[in-house]
């Protein structure tokens, strides 16, 4: 039997909804394990990517410096990188803050907002700094495929990954990208 494909997944500025939807492939996950093994992912709790990963699935947009490092690690390791869901593709909900200056966002949260005790901007080298704008991931690295949806359905994940595993260019028939 051929070697299994390695898949890594992560959520940057996302809500993990795409990961939850991925799990909606239900019992097909057993078939999936015949084809792939999971590398770095919240599902495995592996903290870093192996040197070579076949498929990287990224949920969420790029909000802070840690997101940048994570995304770059994925790009470095993964042969095929896929932007999954509205936030990775367009910035999504977190990008709504792009219309408000970061200064005001931070002040509202940590200095002037209601019920704040001991107002101060958190400052610790372990804390990632926020970028002044939230970016879709293709503005930072080359992205190979885009899997649309908020979230993409379990069937869309299944189709995309099985297509790739079969060595085909993934395609989504209309019913998988039709949401109403």
């Amino acid at each position, binding site marked *: 039997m051929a070697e299994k494909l390695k898949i890594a997944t992560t959520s940057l500025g996302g809500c993990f909804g795409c990961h939850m939807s991925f799990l909606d492939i239900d019992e097909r996950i057993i078939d999936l394990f015949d084809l792939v093994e999971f590398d770095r992912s919240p599902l495995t709790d592996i903290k870093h990517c192996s040197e070579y990963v076949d498929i990287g699935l990224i949920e969420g947009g790029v909000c802070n410096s840690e997101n940048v490092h994570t995304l770059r690690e994925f790009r470095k390791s993964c042969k095929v990188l896929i932007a999954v869901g509205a936030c990775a593709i367009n910035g999504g909900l977190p990008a709504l803050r792009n219309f408000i200056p970061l200064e005001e966002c931070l002040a509202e949260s940590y200095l002037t907002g209601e019920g704040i005790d001991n107002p101060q901007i958190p400052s610790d080298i372990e804390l990632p700094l926020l*970028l002044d704008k939230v970016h879709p991931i293709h503005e*930072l690295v080359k992205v190979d495929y885009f899997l649309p949806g908020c979230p993409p359905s379990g069937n869309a994940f299944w189709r995309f990954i099985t297509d790739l595993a079969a060595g085909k260019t993934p395609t989504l028939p209309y019913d998988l990208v039709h949401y109403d």
Partner: protein
Amino acid sequence: MTWSESKQEKVLAIVSKHEIRQTRLLQILREVQDEFHCVPKNALEIVAAELGLARTKVEGVVQFYSLLSLEQQGRFHILFSDSITDQFQGSRELMDYLSAKLGVKPGQTRSDGKVSLGFTSCTGLCDQGPAGLVNGHWLSRLNESRIDRIVDLVEREVPVSSWPLEFFHVEDNIQSPGLLLQSPIDQGEALKQLVREGFEEIFMEINRSGLRGRGGAGFETAWKWRFCAEGPEDYSGSSLVDKNERFVVCNADEGEPGTFKDRILLNSYAHQVFEGMTVCAGIVGAKQGFLYLRGEYLRLRPQLEAILANRRAKNFLGKSILGRNGFDFDIEIHMGAGAYVCGEESALIESLEGKRGVPRVRPPYPIDRGYLDQPTVVNNVETFAAVAAIAAYGGAWFATQGTDKSKGSKIISISGDCERPGIYEYDFGISIAEILMDCGAENTLAVQVGGPSGGIISGKEYHRKLAFEDLGTGGSFMIFNKKRDVLEIVRNFTHFFAHESCGFCTPCRVGTTLLKNEVDKICDGHATSLDLVGLSSLAKFIKTASHCGLGQSAANPVLGSLSHFPQAYKDRFKDVVFEPGFDLDESLETARRMSARDDPWAHLEQ
């Protein structure tokens, strides 16, 4: 906040001056803007209530046109032309100079409310730039010493009507007149011929002349008129001729950057243009005509009104023109308000009706359903001028010039890097090389024929000819010499389209902005060869998927320069696989400052 009664009265007076007609909404809002230096919320509500329109409808119109504003502008509102030729003449540096002197940035109003600054797409003074507008009036040949004087006038609050006339002086600048410009008709000559020979005979002359529309698309004028005159049939195929009113519209919304021929025609040949419209009205059976004058040409309006009054007095307009029973026609001037897309005929008609200038779905074409859904002829200024000459001198006079498929002559507006910019008229079929020689262009890198929506031509194509069958043009001819950077030109044009997109269809609204961002990324040195793949597929998508001509041509600067000057792109590319289009480390700056950090983890590499 209650609004003073005198202000309310003023708005009501403007509305009733325009006979409380919805079609005059744009004209009303222009006057409100003039009065208050913005369209105040209260005025908006009064206008909406008086006209029986929803407030949001009226607000939508205000937001559509760049010369109208919801925010308070200064009592002196100064706009600089941002056309590429003005930029290359130093307009941006002059704006910096002006902005520093006045202490206000472009796009802002100074706190004392005295002055506001901004940019506008093209003022039609590319041959006499750098140019601008103050309260809607042309400012030509700007330079530092002139700006010093302007600053002084603004600070002393001298009304624009008392500013030195030389600031507003605009020359026709006809460098080389041809068929039309050399032989203007005598007033009334064409109409007398029309009444003497009969409508059908003059129509045949126009048909014989082979005249094609001068706006760029080149539809045969005679056929357009015939379709309008006979036009539309009902579903059973019987004609509706008697049930319809007809309209004649002259498209003087000369917004294509680098075009200014209509400025000259309306300044010195307006009689002939109006006469051409009247000939058209006689032939198609229209009673009402409109001259849709672009907002930036405000200064021409008083003299045009005077000419119209003069023509009415001579019975060249009005009832029973030249004694012919039933030949009734009059012309009204409608002002635009700074929207390039209104040069597209169906958008122009929407604007004439007082709405946002969003292009309609065609067909039905205006000849079937135009102004107020009635058959309407829309022709370019130059077309009407030619019509009058053909009616006076005959179709053969016109048809002997030019080429087989492009009869007659074309007036072109030359700007950019040459000794003698200005107006040139040539018989169709002239080569680009000959034109370049005539206007004294040397070391020419490229010529933009037909403005941003046209095409860019490089050295190996200067043998090509000006004609519908080769290089068609509405009249813009911008020359760039070898000191210019092609990508800066592309960047300017791409920004222009993103700014002028009407926002109706997604491929254009979103696509032009994506295109702009991508070109900025290339110009700022962040792009790699990978970006080219995305850029060209995006460009092709916008071209094929957009609703109207604006979107369909918005990618032309990118596509044209990619095929003619691929090296200009390659020279800018970084030798990495990919890089973000913005400064990553810089975008952490706010967070760094607010959390008082500067450790290695508080920085990012590009």
